[in-house]
Each structure stands twice: as C-alpha cells, then as structure tokens.
C-alpha cells in the first residue's frame, strides 16, 4: 500500500489550548478514511491542518516523500492536489456554477477555457448539477450548493478529497442527495478523508474509521471493529450516544 499522506507527531495549539496532541495518521492511495468524534475533539482541526488552512505547531506532513511543513515547499501547489469540501459550502459568491468549477483550473492550473469547461461539465454531471451551470450560488439550495462544491473540488483533479462535515449545515431531506454523491465517489477509488457525524454513512463507505477524543486518536480500525467491537471505553460511550 502506498501512503499518500503520512502525518507524524502533529501538534496544534491555540495559545494554551492544545487541540492536537501528537497525532500520527496516514491515508493509503484509494482508501476512504472517516474521522469521528465529539465536537471539540480536534477532528476538523486535523483535517484543516492536512491542507494547511491551519498551520500546525509541530510534527510533519509527508506528501509524496516531502514534508510539506518544510518552508521550502510550495504550499499553493500542494493544495491543488487536495480537494476540500467545507461544511458551509463556501462557493464563490460572485461566480456562477460553471465558473466556480473552472476558476481554479484556469487561474491556478493554467488550463485553457475550453478544457476547463469540459472537465467542469464532466464533474457537474457526476454530481447531477450540469443543468444549473448558469445559476449563482445564492439561487441554489444547500444540497445543490454542496454538490457544486464537490464538483469544484473534483475539477482540480486532486489526489485526495477532504470533507469537513459536509452535511452538517444541511436539512435532513437534502443530506441524502449529498451522501449519495459521496457514496458514488467512494466507489470510484478516489482517496477520501471524511470528518462526519453521519455514523451510518461512515460505517457504509469507510475502509478505516478513526475515533478522535480530546486531541488524540483514541482508537482506529475497520468499521466493523469500531462500530461493533469498540475496545476503548470512550469509544463505546460516544457511539452509544450516536447509534442509540
């Protein structure tokens, strides 16, 4: 197995508050990893550290054999290899659906307009939003926005997709449409790291589940191990609340 991202001894603190305490984490090529845990456990911070939206205070993040925390590394280039899907969608307000999916390709990857449009349309089709290319974000529902955000991330043709609680801002009826898209994606063999509160979904799609608690990885294993036979007391306690 080839490790795409290999994180060692990662630390992050805000002043006195240690959010991540010595995290070791890796993800293999083609693997779907879910990170679960209660609010404040550090799972979102870990995800945001992976694409350096938060700057870690220590440790290393190895991507293709290079430590991206090394100051010589081109952070912007590294980020193009990671697609990020946010809890609050964060579609670009002044751009329409198509432009949201092409702006990065054109301005960052320096692709031609036609090629960028082709790739964008392909990905918008995957998420079922190809009919809405002329719409602006404010005209879409939450679920539609999130599907466009997934297409935007895919359009950069990343190695890894990062999902930061992608359904937490959605109403129960639209959660399904986003999860369906993500499930389809997981089947295509793309590498995914997913922070979620959707336990059923995590159990269904993940190759590996990580339970975070208080800034450390308390337990990890296959979905069966974590959901059916958790070893740690904290894991049992947490799952009891969620699966009840």
């Amino acid at each position: 197995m080839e490790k795409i991202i290999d994180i060692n001894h990662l630390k992050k603190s805000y002043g006195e508050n240690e959010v991540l305490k010595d995290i070791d984490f890796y993800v293999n090529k083609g693997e779907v990893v879910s990170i679960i845990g209660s609010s404040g456990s550090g799972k979102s911070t870990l995800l945001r550290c992976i694409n350096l939206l938060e700057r870690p205070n220590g440790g290393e993040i190895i991507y293709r054999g290079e430590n991206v925390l090394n100051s010589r590394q081109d952070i912007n280039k590294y980020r193009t290899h990671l697609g990020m899907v946010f809890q609050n969608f964060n579609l670009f307000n002044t751009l329409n659906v198509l432009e949201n999916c092409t702006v990065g390709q054109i301005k960052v990857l320096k692709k031609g307009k036609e090629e960028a449009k082709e790739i964008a349309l392909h990905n918008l089709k995957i998420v079922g939003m190809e009919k809405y290319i002329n719409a602006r974000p404010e005209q879409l529902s939450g679920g539609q926005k999130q599907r466009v955000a997934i297409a935007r991330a895919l359009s950069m043709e990343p190695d890894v997709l990062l999902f930061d609680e992608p359904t937490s801002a959605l109403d129960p009826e639209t959660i399904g449409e986003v999860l369906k898209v993500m499930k389809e994606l997981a089947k295509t063999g793309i590498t995914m790291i997913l922070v979620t509160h959707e336990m059923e979904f995590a159990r269904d799609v993940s190759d590996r589940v990580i339970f975070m608690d208080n800034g450390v990885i308390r337990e990890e294993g296959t979905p069966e191990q974590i959901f059916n036979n958790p070893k740690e007391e904290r894991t049992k306690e947490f799952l009891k609340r969620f699966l009840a």
Partner: protein
Amino acid sequence: MSFEVMKDIFIKNWPFFLRGAGITLWISIIGTIIGAIIGLLVGVVRTTPIPESGAKRTVLKVSDRLLDMYIGFFRGTPMMVQAMVIYYGVASQFGVEINRIYAAIFIVSINTGAYMAEIVRGGINSVDKGQFEAAHAIGMNHVTTMKEIILPQVIRNILPATGNEFVVNIKDTSMLSVISVTELFFQTRSIAGSTFRFYEPFLITSFIYLIMTLTVTKILRMFEDRLAGSKTYDMVEETME
C-alpha cells in the same frame, strides 16, 4: 427677489453656470475614480496578512505605518486647508505654478483615496472568511484570491459608499474655489460680483448642484442593480461533451 431677475441672470450668464458645472462634474468624476483606485490599492495592502518573519514582513509593516499616516492626515484636516497647503506650498517651495484643475483633481483624488481606503478595508474584512479559505484550498495565492474572488465582492459591497463619496465630492469641490478653480461655486461668485446680486445666482446654483447629485445617485443605483445580476437563471437542458 423676483423670478424675473433670476431668469434674467440665468439668460445672461448661462454659459458661466454651465462651464462651472462642467468643471465641478469633471473634477468630481475623475477625483472619485482615481480616489477609488487609490482606496482599493491602499485597502488591499492594509489587509494583506503580515507573515511571521522575512523581508516581506518589514516592508508590509513600514507601508502599513505610512498608509496609516496618509489616511490620518487627509481625513483629519479640512480639504480647503489641504488645497491651500498643497497649491501654495508647491508654488512657494518649488517655484512652479501647477495647473489649477490638475491641482484640484489631485486634492480630491487623494482625499477620496483616504476615505475609500477605510471603506475598502471594511469591505474586505466583511467578506466571509470561507471565501478566502475556499480560494486558498484550491491553491490560489493571496494576489489571485483577492483579484478573482474577494475584490469583485468588495466592489459590489462598497458601491453605495463610493456613490456617496461621489456626491460629497460634487459638493465639496466648491471648497476648491480658494485656489481659484473655476468650478461652479467660483463662477457663481463671479456672477454675483458682476450683477451685484447674491440671492438669485446662488439659488440657481443650488438647483444645479441638486440636479447633478440627484442624477448621479440615480445612475449609480441603476449600476448597482445591474451588478447584482439577473434574478433568474436558465436551465441548460443539454450540455456538450
């Protein structure tokens, strides 16, 4: 006063009123545009995140300090006084007489720039943090993020305030009469001097100011609506691929 007197004054002097109004409008349009550009540049520099170390940190820190001084000075002193200092200062210190219109445009621009810089800074700070994060997450650097994602939103948001500055400039150019710029107020004073009437010429002039400011307000409102984009969108039934 009588309406007859007013009519008489206007008929005899309308080219002066018109020329004055033209110069007022010209100075305020150019001044507002240049001022808005200055404001955008200054606002962008002042909101650039300062790195923890390196040469860029020093440059940004120094420029932030200088820009603070610029904004502080031009917002903190009357434009009329600035006009006197700049126009007569340049004349006495360097012995050059600058064209009064250019001097006027310069003063209005730099003044508007100081106000707009604060408006732009507020505009940038009020853009949702998620917009920056999403742009950074797809690998955009700071300059591309600002140019492609943030500034289009900022410009849309600061348009009402810019229109406000424009209206203020139309009125405030009257202060430039102190350096004998032949704008509307200056022309009206000349007309008043030659006709020995003050009330009627200035009443006419107040109407001219009102027409200019109301027209500008109206045009800018239309522009804002256009920038907001259409309320609907077309569904695309078949896509090429």
